[in-house]
């Protein structure tokens, strides 16, 4: 292993310490504040779209690691937040592309973290949403959450998901119609 020792005997880490790491966009306090503002909605998005709270936790961490590791960074919190959702969406897409992953039908209800302490009405709404989302395709869940939970415009959704802005409208219309139909069938009304 003479070759290896030749390569690694040079004391480079000290030389590297000073330069590139200092280029991070945020210090730990700024990141903590940003995380506090963005992690919960991002985690909810990942959990609702993936259907698994455990997977959502893993993807949440990976999303922030990639966000902090990225060199090209968009300015402003709104853009950074959108960028965060884009990373998360890409991770979800990569997850779905993997040949072996757990089918949505195999995910137990308990994995979604339904709390027993909530009110009955909230439980019903939440359970209905979970059940309704399970009947949709991952892409439809993604679009519905981004449009109606995060209130992103069609253009922003297109930037996050990588879909064409023109097709977002139709896909979203279909997904919303399916979800509304499911909710109505199960006794939900939105006017109250």
């Amino acid at each position, binding site marked *: *292993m003479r*070759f*290896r020792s*030749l*390569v*690694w005997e*040079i004391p*480079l*880490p000290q*030389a*590297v*310490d000073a*330069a*590139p*790491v200092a280029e*991070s966009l945020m210090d*730990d306090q700024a*990141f*903590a504040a940003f*995380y*506090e503002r963005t*992690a*919960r*909605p991002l*985690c*909810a998005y990942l*959990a*609702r779209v993936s259907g698994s709270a455990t997977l959502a936790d893993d993807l949440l961490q990976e999303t*922030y*690691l990639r966000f*902090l*590791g990225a060199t090209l960074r968009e300015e402003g919190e709104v853009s950074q937040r959108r960028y965060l959702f884009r990373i998360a969406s890409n991770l979800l897409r990569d997850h779905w592309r993997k040949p072996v992953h757990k089918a949505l039908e195999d995910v137990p209800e308990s994995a979604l973290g339904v709390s027993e302490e*909530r009110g009955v009405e*909230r439980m019903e*709404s*939440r359970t*209905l*949403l979970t059940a*309704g989302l399970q009947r949709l395709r991952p892409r439809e869940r993604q679009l*519905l*959450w981004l449009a*109606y*939970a*995060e*209130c992103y415009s069609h253009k922003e959704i297109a930037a996050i998901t990588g879909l064409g802005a023109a097709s977002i*409208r*139709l896909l979203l*219309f*279909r997904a*919303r*119609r399916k*979800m*509304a139909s499911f*909710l*109505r069938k199960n006794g*939900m*009304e*939105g*006017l*109250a």
Partner: protein
Amino acid sequence: MKLRSCCRKAELTALLRDSRWPLGADLELRAHVSACGHCSELVLVMTVFQQARREAAQAELDAPGTLWWRAQLLRRRKAIETATRPIMVAEIVGLVVVMAALALSGWRWFEANATPAWMLAMRDLLHPAALVAAIANASPLVLVTAALTISVLVAAFVLCLSAARDS
């Protein structure tokens, strides 16, 4: 499928997003929503999603400190890899040049001085025609031994390279 968008959609979306529906809406808008299929569907779906989002806002989070430090470690590792790559290449090139220079000077020295008989035999053997003839005349046992030796040397070199890359 006909795609229609209601003119009051933006107004309604803002009310739902800010949790001001239905109390913050005027009577006219409420009457409109009752009559408009598009808007009533929007209210139904968005109410459920907004409620889920509000519930998610109360979830407990892990501390971000560990995550931030992990990201810094990853950045540092990446920076070290980037910085050491050209140096590693330069080292390999330098090593090859030194070996070649040593071999050349040794060759010159042996040519200028009395070369031992075994080295002369080796030099003759390195001639392509002589090498082919030697291989043709060699016994199978010698050929197998030579092939095994070369394989072991190549494998050792590859392992050495991959170990250096992994570390």
